[in-house]
């Protein structure tokens, strides 16, 4: 499975791509496989404040709804509207076209609390197998 080196990861399977004061957020390849076919996404609104490890969006498969947590605290600056018409982008392209929202980071120190690709890879390998 692919976990790009330039991203940071949460134990709840979000990724964050930091670009200066802003960052894009999505779910990992592992998460999209676990969720399976994504059929609905509820996006946050621009201007909305989010807190680290608190719910910021919802991704639903046929069977269930999954809360998406903000990897770091901040203010939403954009959301991927393409997901409303085509939620399957999360499955097809979890790290690019399937990004979920963008935020302005309020506390850059929080980024350092997140896992590196190597750490996340290890965490995923230890996850219980079905």
């Amino acid at each position: 499975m692919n976990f790009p080196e330039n991203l940071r990861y949460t134990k709840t399977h979000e990724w964050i791509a930091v670009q200066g004061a802003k960052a894009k957020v999505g779910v990992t390849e592992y998460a999209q496989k676990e969720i399976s076919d994504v059929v609905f996404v509820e996006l946050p609104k621009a201007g909305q404040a989010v807190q680290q490890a608190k719910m910021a969006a919802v991704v639903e498969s046929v069977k269930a709804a999954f809360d998406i947590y903000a990897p770091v605290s901040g203010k939403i600056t954009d959301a991927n509207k393409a997901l409303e018409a085509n939620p399957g982008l999360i499955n097809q392209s979890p790290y690019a076209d399937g990004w979920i929202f963008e935020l302005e980071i309020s506390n850059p120190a929080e980024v350092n609390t997140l896992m590196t690709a190597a750490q996340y890879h290890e965490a995923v390998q230890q996850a219980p197998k079905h």
Partner: protein
Amino acid sequence: MALTTEPTKLPLHEEHLRKGARMGDFGGWLVPLFYTSIMEEHTAVRTQAGIFDISHMGEFIVEGPGALAYLEKNLPRRITPMKFSQAIYMPLVNDRGGMVDDIIVYRMQEQKFLIIVNAGNIEKDFAWFKARVTQGVTLTNLSDEMGLLALQGPLSQTILLECFGAFYKDLRRFHYKDFEGGVIARTGYTGEDGYEIMVPKAKLKQVWDVLFRVGAKHGLLPIGFGARDTLRLEAAMPLYGHELTDEITPLEADLEWAIDLTKDEFPGSAILKKQKQTGIQKKRAGFEMTERGIPRQGFEIQKNGKATGAVTSGSFIPTTGKNIGMAYVTASEAKTGNAIDVMVRGKPVKAVIVPLPFYKRR
């Protein structure tokens, strides 16, 4: 004290893993949730054919010189007119008029019946039947000995006949024929044509293999419990624990067709007859979301800002792309075309009552 128990494995557990199944818990059973994707599997059953391993379900045998009288006294439909090749569906009704389970009764001989019950209710149902046993009735729980596969979809007859021969050609809906120490019945839980094949566990893998060997060229796929749920929801078939509970009556569940209020007394019959006269307060209804949002079990239903019911099942439907659900709503609000709100994560999302079923095969 919290005792955690390992979910029970299906007899074909290894076969499911070999076919790439994602396994998950379903009422204490470790079952395939999907193999490739719910979307693909749902579509396969609507357009070609699929196999479901439903060996978790329970099977009881009721036999002996008192068997017929015993079932006639305790079940809500007439058993005496049943032919020896026939199967009928009905709820099992408790003394309060609520539903213990929904079951299928097969008449095997004059005084011998097979009853198929939901997996999660095996112990409860067995206790219910046992508590009512009278002289000349032997009740046996075969659940651990039998395996059950469902072959469903428009091509299921083609596949079945190619596998097991023309002997099964004239098998009609809700009828069965003997098969390898078990039965093949023309029944199912998907809204499509199809069969349920019950055989002793030891023969299950052989049947599974034959079906796949022959079915491959017809597009036959293994189907997980994810698609089983979307298929039955689209066909508006109630599921125990969702649309059916010990507190809901068959009249509220729109299952009056599956009970007979003109027959002699059965558990709950007096209450049901009274409810038939006075009318029901709440009713099972279908709805379709008209705004973006997927309804899920437990979501409140509102009309003009006031609670009027709750969702019992809801899902995105792969073949139509619609978000649909079933709910219990105040009877007066259950009219087709009525605009309602479903409370999705605390926010009202618009929906409209539609007739059931959502899907009917051509």
